[in-house]
């Protein structure tokens, strides 16, 4: 039974998640609407089990499944871990929010779990077809999730925009896939890499690469395919926005790393393109975030600029860069989910979304403000937070590439000032004096939502200090990625 063995060695989390999905589907149809909360518990359980099952995957070897179209190396294991952890937190977020779904709670968890499954597959996919299928699984569920509030005009609109934009982007990507297939006659990535290592693809390959990348740029909301993000984040239910800005992005990055190997003959072009796109993402995100009043939109723009930082890691096309990007992703996941948790806690109790609604909240809710502030500071890259370490590590990686990448460093550095401005704007609102009366005390009663919120904020600080293991993990995972680099850099 090779097939089952493959699944056991390579796809255990996916398998467990699939079983959970099946169970949820059945329960969804069976259970009365009042007790569909059970599905919440079950999906949580499924996620936790599958999270633990990741540790059973051997990290030091590459395992494949489905005839080599799925491969599980350490990098993808790490990414899948992040995806599952992120999904878990997103589901936790819905605890108090789900009443807005009226009687369709079960469907919601179902869709989230399927989307997570798509993300997991995307992170491990090793074949163009697999990539496409996984991506579409993720995307279609995301569209549906965005429009989950059927009666809500903005939710509808968000879903519609997301769908149109996503459809066009995936068509563009597929167009690129078709040429990739045409040039090489292959769909398996490993084979394509070895083909490209021996044959030059010509100019056509360059164009192909650009179109292929575009699909992933859409998924991670990077410039120029970023404009859907603010609208969708604003319109979609808050947990969905959190999901899109974390899990879906991580999956996109994971797949993008897989495709890095395509740049074999065009290292410089791809590198500079990605660098440029990264910078433009950071800049566009930051500039547009400056004037935002709505905190959800602000988070959307901030996530665009954070995407740019991760892309810098990719643009370097070095192990150092990838490890920087991975470490940055970890920090981003923690801090961003923390921020979204704060938003959802606030939104659950006040149904408000504007930054000015937060005015003076710190004095009635010190823990809320402190934890939220820490997450924002981490996103801005202020010590002692994991975000600071991640930025430093990333910049360190840029500089290690030598003077040729100094422009990237300079622009990235300048952009951090802009980002500090709008993160501080939120913090300022929370701590501004004289308006304490606007906000009454939030209920902060130590439920799972609050516990995970505080836990994330604590993690932000703790991991900002105990940072070595995470850097090592990031480095180890980067080493398992196939990169089109011939010389091995100084990299312990």
């Amino acid at each position, binding site marked *: 039974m090779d097939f089952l063995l493959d699944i056991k060695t390579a796809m255990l989390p996916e398998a467990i998640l699939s079983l959970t999905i099946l169970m949820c589907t059945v329960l969804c149809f069976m259970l009365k609407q009042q007790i569909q909360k059970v599905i919440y518990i079950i999906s949580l359980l499924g996620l936790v089990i599958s999270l633990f099952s990741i540790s059973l995957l051997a990290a030091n070897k590459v395992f494949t499944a489905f005839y080599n179209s799925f491969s599980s190396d350490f990098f993808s294991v790490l990414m899948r871990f992040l995806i599952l952890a992120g999904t878990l937190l997103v589901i936790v977020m819905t605890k108090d929010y789900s009443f807005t779904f009226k009687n369709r709670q079960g469907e919601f968890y179902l869709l989230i779990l399927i989307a997570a499954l798509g993300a997991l597959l995307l992170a491990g996919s090793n074949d163009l077809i697999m990539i496409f299928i996984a991506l579409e699984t993720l995307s279609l569920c995301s569209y549906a999730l965005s429009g989950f509030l059927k009666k809500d005009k903005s939710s509808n609109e968000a879903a519609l925009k997301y769908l149109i934009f996503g459809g066009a982007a995936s068509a563009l990507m597929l167009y690129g896939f078709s040429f990739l297939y045409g040039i090489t006659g292959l769909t398996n990535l490993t084979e394509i890499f070895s083909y490209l290592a021996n044959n030059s693809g010509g100019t056509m390959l360059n164009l192909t690469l650009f179109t292929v990348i575009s699909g992933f740029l859409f998924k991670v909301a990077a410039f120029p395919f970023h404009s859907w993000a603010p609208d969708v984040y604003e319109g979609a239910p808050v947990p969905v926005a959190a999901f899109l800005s974390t899990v879906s992005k991580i999956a996109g990055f994971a797949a993008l790393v897989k495709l890095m190997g395509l740049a074999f003959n065009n290292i410089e072009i791809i590198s500079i393109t990605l660098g440029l796109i990264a910078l433009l993402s950071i800049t566009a995100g930051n500039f547009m975030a400056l004037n935002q009043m709505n905190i959800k939109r602000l988070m959307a723009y901030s996530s665009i600029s954070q995407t740019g930082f991760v892309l810098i890691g990719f643009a370097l096309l070095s192990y150092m860069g990838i490890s920087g990007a991975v470490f940055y992703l970890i920090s981003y996941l923690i801090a961003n989910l923390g921020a979204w948790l704060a938003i959802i806690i606030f939104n659950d109790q006040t149904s408000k979304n504007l930054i000015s609604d937060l005015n003076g909240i710190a004095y009635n809710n010190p823990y809320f403000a402190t934890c939220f502030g820490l997450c924002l500071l981490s996103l801005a890259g202020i010590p002692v937070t994991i975000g600071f370490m991640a930025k430093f590590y990333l910049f360190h990686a840029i500089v290690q590439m*030598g003077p040729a990448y100094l422009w990237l460093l300079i622009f990235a550095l300048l952009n951090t000032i802009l980002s500090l401005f709008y993160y501080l704007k939120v913090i300022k609102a929370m701590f501004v004096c004289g308006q304490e009366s606007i906000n009454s005390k939030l209920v902060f009663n130590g439920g799972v939502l609050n516990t995970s919120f505080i836990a994330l904020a604590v993690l932000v600080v703790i991991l900002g200090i105990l940072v070595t293991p995470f850097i090592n993990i990031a480095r180890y995972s980067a080493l398992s990625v196939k990169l089109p680099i011939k010389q091995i850099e100084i990299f312990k």
Partner: protein
Amino acid sequence: MEFLSLNILIFAPLIVAGIILSPLFPNDKIIVRRFAKGFSGILFIYSILFLLFFDPYNTDYQFKENIKFFSDTNWIEPLGISLGFGLDGISIMLVVLATFLVMLALIVSKKSITTKHKLYYSLILALTTAILGMVTARDLFLFFLFWELELIPMYFLILIWGTGKKEYSAMKFVLYTFFGSLFMLGSILLLNYFHVLNTGISTFSIEALTYSRHYEIPFLFESLIFLGFFIAFAVKLPIVPLHTWLPNAHVDAPTPVSMLLAGILLKMGGYGLIRFNIQMFPEMIKVFAPMLIISGVINIIYAALVALAQKDLKLLIAYSSVSHMGFVLLGLGALNSIGITGAMFQMIAHGLISAGLFLIVGVIYFRTKTRVFSHLGGLGQVMPKAFYFTILLAFASLGLPLLIGFAAEVMIFYGAFTSNSLDGFVLSNQLMTALAAISIVITAAYLLWVLQKVFMGNMFEKWQKVQDITPHETIALTFLSIPIVLFGLYPEGVTSLFLPFVDSLVSYFTL
């Protein structure tokens, strides 16, 4: 000496801040204040102990300590970042100055801080940790980390307890400093890059990058690195076109915070210039000495002239800070032992004097609710004690002999005048020093203007009921006056601590 641990010195304030902030701590403002004050007093005494056991003739770091996580050697092993602290000639004085000023700031906080005591005192203590960490860090990364860390408490202190356009000022302060620090970050990373390139070892250790740098960095990059550091410290010091955050931040910050800002945070710029620009790049500093001297002279004259035109007391004092920090630049630009000694001495002198002056401004503002000269006058009649202290501080500030400012200025003027760091440049050291000396007239003019407008002359009826300074403030001002007089009479008491260090510094770039 076992009981002297820098780790305790640096992190104890942070831990105490946590204790104060924790919900278990009683929310009684008197208890909070006394606890914080008591702790800061203990911290000051503790830092004095370091001073007593400090060996000035050892130019190396002393009291070295390393904290390790998950590794035998370093904090972040993959990058070669260590969590190491140490004291040498320049840091020891700043450590003592910092704990001293924090203690005084907490003593005078009684009047000016009326709300949110727990948060306030814990933020000040967190700020203390950041400052102490900055001056004792033996690792570039660590220095940078504390440099940025200091922004956050400072931001909140201005934002929450400030006056006027506090939100604007706080934001400006943070963004400006952050802007500068980015250049420093770039420089730190480039320095590390060239170290890796030449030795294959990634390290951020200041010692390694200073003393065992036996390879050449290309001139272009070395000057870029130098300028990166310089810009960061130029913002902090501040150097003239980059100074505009300072008036805003000072004017809108509450009194104790202004004291700390002027007293110790500005000195971080000077400290950085010595520690990095001079110590690490003895070759580059020779190239850039004209820049230091010219910007120093511009600082001195320009800021003094601006101060002359101010209508607001606190703004005037703020600009006088800028002007006085110009002397630090001038002294450093001299590139000789006496000039650098003078610059360091000036940092300490200005730290004490400006803290006192800002305290006086706060005292007046608290009682009259105005800082505009035209509304003040004749206050000497109702607050004689404040008047006498102001006279002392003002004269110390304008460089009256036998007070602390004079010794510093003399050393700087002498160092700058006899220096030849501008050889081969269109201007001569002598001319620039003579230009800078004009400031002794302008400084006298604006400081005496303050005395005249605020304390002398006719008094408005409405100030008849104004109270003289409280015992707290008297104690703080007396504490400030003691070193101002003492080290004015006996400057060697301070200079001997860092003279050997400066000598070793100068030996690297003997002109």
